[in-house]
């Protein structure tokens, strides 16, 4: 079995991003970048499946400029076998990403494509579902538990009502939720070893992807600030304030 895991390079989740004063975007210069946390969880799950002897190969894929090689190398250091960089200097939106991944899927024929449930920069939560649609295969989104047997996967999904369990035939697309696992830390010797693992670069232009018209970002703005709060000294004072506002 082969598992393809997608990795997106995003602003580190601990960074509080700021909108540029001219509203043209958010400040990303000099900001710490990392693997999207959900993608790290997806990769961890793929590696655990491999370590259980249920998969032979884990391939990490990222779409972007030379800088995404850093995150692919981190993925290799975690334990992926090889990496593919789809090279482009343009930001890709989810449908283009899904169409790009479909080209790789046709070439690589994986049994599972594992993505994060959303990227923490655009917060879209679309790419996995879109890939599954284009590939005409099952999707198991927001996965918190994955069990494989007999060419099928039983996936526990985090839904609003609780947990939903679905059975899907492989090949399938899965997207990871937070509680799927706790990703491992990368060790120094593994970082050294990762430098010798294969990392192929494919120009996006060579894949023949038909890009749909992108959504156009007009302006960026900071979220509205909440008014200054008030510290109260006691429960009685708090209850009084809430009663004044008609909330109790």
């Amino acid at each position: 079995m082969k598992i393809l895991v997608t990795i997106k390079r995003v602003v580190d989740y601990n960074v509080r991003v700021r909108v540029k004063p001219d509203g043209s975007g958010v400040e990303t210069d000099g900001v710490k970048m990392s693997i999207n946390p959900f993608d790290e969880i997806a990769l961890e799950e793929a590696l655990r499946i491999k370590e259980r002897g249920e998969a032979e190969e884990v391939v990490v894929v990222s779409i972007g400029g030379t800088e995404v090689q850093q995150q692919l190398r981190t993925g290799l250091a975690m334990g992926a076998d090889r990496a593919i960089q789809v090279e482009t200097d343009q930001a890709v939106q989810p449908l283009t990403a899904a169409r790009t991944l479909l080209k790789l899927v046709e070439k690589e024929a994986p049994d599972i494509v594992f993505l994060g449930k959303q990227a923490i920069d655009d917060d879209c939560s679309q790419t996995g579902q879109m890939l599954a649609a284009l590939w005409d295969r099952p999707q198991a989104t927001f996965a918190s538990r994955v069990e494989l047997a007999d060419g099928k996967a039983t996936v526990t999904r985090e839904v609003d009502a609780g947990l939903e369990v679905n059975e899907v035939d492989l090949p399938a697309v899965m997207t990871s939720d937070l509680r799927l696992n706790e990703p491992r830390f990368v060790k120094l010797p593994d970082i050294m070893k990762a430098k010798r693992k294969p990392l192929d670069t494919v120009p996006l232009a060579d894949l023949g992807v038909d890009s749909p018209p992108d959504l156009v970002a007009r302006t960026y703005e900071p979220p509205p600030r909440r008014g200054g709060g008030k510290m109260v000294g006691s429960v009685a004072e708090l209850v009084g304030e809430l009663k004044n506002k008609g909330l109790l």
Partner: protein
Amino acid sequence: MAKVLIIGEHDGQTLNPATAKTVQGASGLGIDDIDIVLFGTALDDVAAQAAAVNGVSRVLTCVHDDFAHPLASRIAPEVAAIAGDYSHILTGSTTFGKDLLPRAAALIGVNQVSDIMEVIDARTFKRPIYAGNAIVTVEVPEGGPVVGTIRSASFAAAGEGGNAEISGLEPQAEDPGHTRFVRVEGSGGDGPDLASADVVVSGGRALGSADNFAIIFSLAQKMGAAVGASRAAVDAGYVPNELQVGQTGKIIAPDLYFAIGISGAIQHLTGIKDAGTIVAINKDADAPIFEIADFGLVGDLFELVPELEKAV
């Protein structure tokens, strides 16, 4: 053709409040024709509820055994098949909507606008990015319908009093057979629904254990409130994960929100920024939660929460 299609969400008996909120969001588009489509096995009750939502023109019921459970791989092709009649295809930004709509958008061949928080005009919307730390105004290019999810916390539910026409719709796609529903494990809580409650009492890591969380449930019960939790409390196993409030849990906008023993990480604040009034109770006076709280109380939650329960 300017017409809106909303994919209704329901559990077989009740229309999810997210659907009436999506109707409210759609009413800002300046388009009078709003249809709701429902997929299910027995839809009479839910269709009647959908028809009563103000502003809805038609309710389309697509009844088939295949729709016993809302599987995206089965429903998305149905949505794509009728998409050609509509300028806008919307649903609520719930796990149902997030799972289904991107699959339909890909089949239609357009990008989706996720989590619409404000409608500027028929093709221009505001949506939050970076865990709500920035708001982007996006324009959907011509050349396809607008496909989007409506952020429930940003819109009130459209009122009742409508009288839409209800008509049947034949399924057009076939079950691909590759995805099967097995079971659902709900928490079975009997309090109000977290996503739509007027008052929410949330607890965090500082509660220290699942047993200690009882004081949160007790306060919530006294107030008729729903219970929520931070990621830390969920990860520690104090409460089930469907109670998680935040960027990757539920995004809520109750009138009154109590954050108890929650420090206020960026990812949590994203989930509550639109609450009417936020009350924070924490022993750390420097906790970030106090920066957005309307009322803050510094002290030991194990003393203050029972005291509060007596006082309300």
